C-alpha cells in the first residue's frame, strides 16, 4: 500500500511543472475545492461528533474518573482511592463468577447457536412449500422484546410450571428441576433461553449471506456430479465466511454485555449468589442496590475494556479481510 503511494506521489508533482500562470490558477481552484470539501466535512459531521462526544466520550471519561473514588453517590466524590475499586472487583468471588458466566455465554452462544443456525439456514435455503412461513417463524423470538421473552420464560420455568408439566406428560418427570433456582443449573437454563432468542438472528444473517452465493457455482458443481453435502461443504460454507465472522463478532460483543434477559429471568437471590450474575448485572447490583457508585463505575470500565479488546482482536485477526478498506483502510 505505502510503496504504491510513494510511486504515485512524485508522478503527481511532475505533472504540475508546465506554464506558470495556468498552474497557479489550477492550484487555487484546487485549494478552493479542498476548502469546500473541508467545510462540507466539518458542517456535516459536527452535530454527530458533538452528540457522540457529549453522550459517549464525556460519560466514559466520567466513568473512568469516578471509578477512582470511594463514592456512595451522596454528595460529590471526594475520597480518592486510586485503583482500589479495580483490585476489590477482582478479589470478589461473585465478580469472578460473573466473568465465568459471561465466558459460558460467549462460548455457549458460538458453539451452540452457530451450528444450529448454519444447519437451519442451509435447509431453509432450499426450495420447498411454506419456506417463507418457516423463515418468519424462525425469526419471531428475535423480534420480541428481551424483557417480554424473559418474563415469558420465567413463567414457563417456575416450579411446576408449563415446562415441568410438559416434561412429566412426556414421561420425563425425572428431568424436572428448579430451573431458575438451582445454583448449578440456572446459567445453563439462561443459556438455553438466550439461544432460543438469538438463533433466529443468526439464521436471518446467514440466509442473507446465502443469497449472495451465485447459483452458477452450485449448478456447475451439481453438473460435475457433486452431492448436496459436497456443494455445501466446499462452495457454500466457504463463501459464507464473511457473514459467519460478522455474526460471531456481534454474538461475542452481545454476550459480554448481556443484561436484561438475565436481570428479568433469574431470581435476585440466585443472581446475587453469583450463579446467574453477569458483569452487567453485577454492575447494577453493586452500583445501585449496594449504592457503591465508584465501584459500579469501575465495573463498567472493566466491562468496557473487555468488550473493546475483544472487538479489536476480532477486527485484527478475523474480520481483517472482510472489512478491508471499510474501517482500517484509507479513504481514496
Amino acid at each position, binding site marked *: 500500500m505505502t510503496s504504491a503511494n510513494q510511486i504515485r506521489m512524485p508522478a503527481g508533482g511532475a505533472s504540475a511543472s508546465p506554464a506558470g500562470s495556468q498552474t497557479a490558477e489550477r492550484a487555487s481552484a484546487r485549494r478552493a475545492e479542498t476548502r469546500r470539501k473541508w467545510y462540507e466535512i466539518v458542517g456535516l459531521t459536527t452535530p454527530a461528533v458533538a452528540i457522540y462526544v457529549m453522550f459517549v466520550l464525556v460519560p466514559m471519561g466520567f466513568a473512568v474518573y469516578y471509578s477512582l473514588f470511594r463514592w456512595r*453517590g451522596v454528595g460529590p466524590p471526594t475520597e480518592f482511592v486510586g485503583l482500589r475499586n479495580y483490585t476489590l472487583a477482582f478479589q470478589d468471588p461473585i465478580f469472578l463468577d460473573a466473568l465465568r458466566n459471561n465466558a459460558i455465554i460467549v462460548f455457549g452462544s458460538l458453539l451452540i447457536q452457530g451450528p444450529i443456525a448454519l444447519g437451519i439456514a442451509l435447509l431453509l435455503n432450499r426450495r420447498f412449500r411454506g419456506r417463507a412461513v418457516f423463515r418468519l417463524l424462525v425469526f419471531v423470538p428475535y423480534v420480541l422484546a428481551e424483557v417480554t421473552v424473559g418474563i415469558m420464560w420465567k413463567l414457563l420455568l417456575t416450579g411446576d410450571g408449563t415446562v415441568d408439566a410438559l416434561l412429566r406428560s412426556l414421561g420425563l418427570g425425572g428431568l424436572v428441576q428448579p430451573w431458575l433456582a438451582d445454583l448449578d443449573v440456572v446459567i445453563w437454563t439462561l443459556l438455553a433461553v438466550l439461544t432460543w432468542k438469538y438463533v433466529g438472528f443468526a439464521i436471518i444473517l446467514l440466509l442473507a449471506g446465502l443469497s449472495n452465493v451465485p447459483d452458477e457455482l452450485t449448478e456447475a458443481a451439481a453438473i460435475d456430479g457433486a452431492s448436496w453435502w459436497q456443494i455445501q461443504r466446499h462452495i457454500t460454507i466457504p463463501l459464507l465466511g464473511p457473514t459467519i465472522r460478522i455474526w460471531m463478532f456481534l454474538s461475542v460483543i452481545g454476550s459480554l*454485555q448481556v443484561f436484561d434477559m438475565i436481570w428479568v429471568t433469574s431470581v435476585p*437471590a440466585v443472581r*446475587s449468589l453469583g450463579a446467574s450474575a453477569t458483569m452487567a448485572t453485577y454492575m447494577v447490583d453493586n452500583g445501585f442496590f449496594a*449504592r457503591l457508585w465508584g465501584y459500579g463505575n469501575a465495573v463498567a470500565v472493566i466491562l468496557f475494556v473487555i468488550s473493546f479488546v475483544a472487538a479489536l482482536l476480532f477486527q485484527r485477526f478475523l474480520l481483517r479481510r472482510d472489512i478491508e478498506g471499510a474501517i482500517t483502510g484509507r479513504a481514496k
Partner: protein
Amino acid sequence: MATKRRACAVLALLMTSVLVVAGCNSGGDEASPQSELYKNPVTLTWWHNGSQDGPGKTYWEKVAKDFSALHPTVKIEIEAIETNQLQRTRLPAALLSNDPPDIFQAWGGGEMREQVEADYLKEITGQVKTEVANIGSAAEIWQVNGKQYGLPFRMGIEGIWYNKEMFARAGIAAPPATFEELNAAVTKLKAINVVPIAVGAGDKWPAAHWWYNLALRACSVDTLKKASTDRVFDDPCFVKAGQDLKAFIDTKPFQPNFIATPGQNDPTSANGMLANGKAAMELMGDWNRGTLDTVATDTAKLATFLGWFPVPAISGSPGDPKAALGGGDGFSCSKNAPAECVEFLKYIVSPEVQKGYAETGTGLPVAKGADAGVKDPALKSILEATSGASYVQLWLDTAYGSTVGNAMNDAIVAIFAGNGTPEKVVSAMKAAASK
C-alpha cells in the same frame, strides 16, 4: 444485541454523575420567613411509592387535593414510583442534581444519615415540635444527631401472619410464644400436609428478616444501638444469630424451592401462598395486610382466617423478648424546598389525615388520635404489640445503610441456599462497611 440496553444502564449511572457537576453550583438556602407563607403561588413536587393502583395511591391523591383546596396558592404534583426504583436510582440521582423533588419518601436510618451529611435535607426540628410529640418515639428514626429531618406516616412492627383455620386443623391451641413452640407448631402443620412457613427468599430481604429477628433475640439492645451508629459488628451475638438461623432452616419449616419464591405482589409469592391457603405462616411487616388483599383470590375468605402474632422469644437469650423489629415510611423535604413543604408534611401527619390513612387499611398510622381508623383485627393486634414493645429496632438493612445492608442480605441468603456460614455474614458486613 444487548449493547443498547447495557448502554442505558451505564448511561443512567453516568449521566446522573454528570449532573453532579451541574448541581454543585446551585443556589443557597432560600427559606422564606413564616409570614410569607401562602403569599406566592408554589408548586410542590411529591414523590412517593404508592405506585400500585389501590387505596394507598388514591388516598395520597385525595390528600394533595384537599391541601390545595385549603391553600389555593399551593399546587402539588405527584409522581408515584415503585419503591426499589425510587429508593435506589431515582432519588439518589435527583438529589445529586439541582432539581430534587420538594417532598419525598424517606426511610430513616443509615440512608437518611448519609443524606443529611451531604446536606440534602431540610432541618425541621423547630417547626414540627407538636407533630413529633404526637407521634412519639417512632419519630426518632427520622432524626440525625437529635435533629428532625422528616416525619413518619406509617410505622409498625413485624410479626408472623398466620392461617387460624390451618392452626385449628393441626391442633395448635395458641400462637407460639417461644421458638420451641414454633418448632412444635411446624411439626404439627407438616403432619396435616401443609407448608408451615412461606418465605420469599428470591427477593432476599424477606429471608434476611429471619436473621434480623434472631439477631434481635441474640443481641442486647445496647449492642444493636451501637451497631447502628458505629457500624461495628464484633459482638459474637451476630454469629449466634446465623447459627440459630441455620438450626432453624435445618428443621425444614419453609416451602420447597424457596430460593426462587418472590416476596410479595404475585400469586406465586410467599404472601400469595399465605393469602390463598397454600402456607400457614409468613414473617412480614404491617403493610402485609394490604399486599395480601391484592394477591388473594378470595379476600372475604382471607379476612376470616388471617391472624397475627409477634415473633416468638428464645428462652435464655440476652435479647429483650419484648423488643421488636419494625420500620415505617416517612417523608422529608429537600433542603431548598419552599416553606409550604413543611406545612404540607405537617398536614400529612395530622390526626385527621392519619385517621383517613388508617381507614385505607394499607398500614398503621403513627399519630395519636388516628387509632380509631384501624378496623382490621390483625392490624389492631399489631398496633397493640407496637405500643407494647419495649424497643423497636429499625430493619437492619435500613439502619446500617444500603452498602452494608445489601452485603448482609446476600450473605444471609447464602445460608438459606446452603452455601453460606454464620461467620461469613459478619465478615461480609465488615467488608462492606469498608468498601
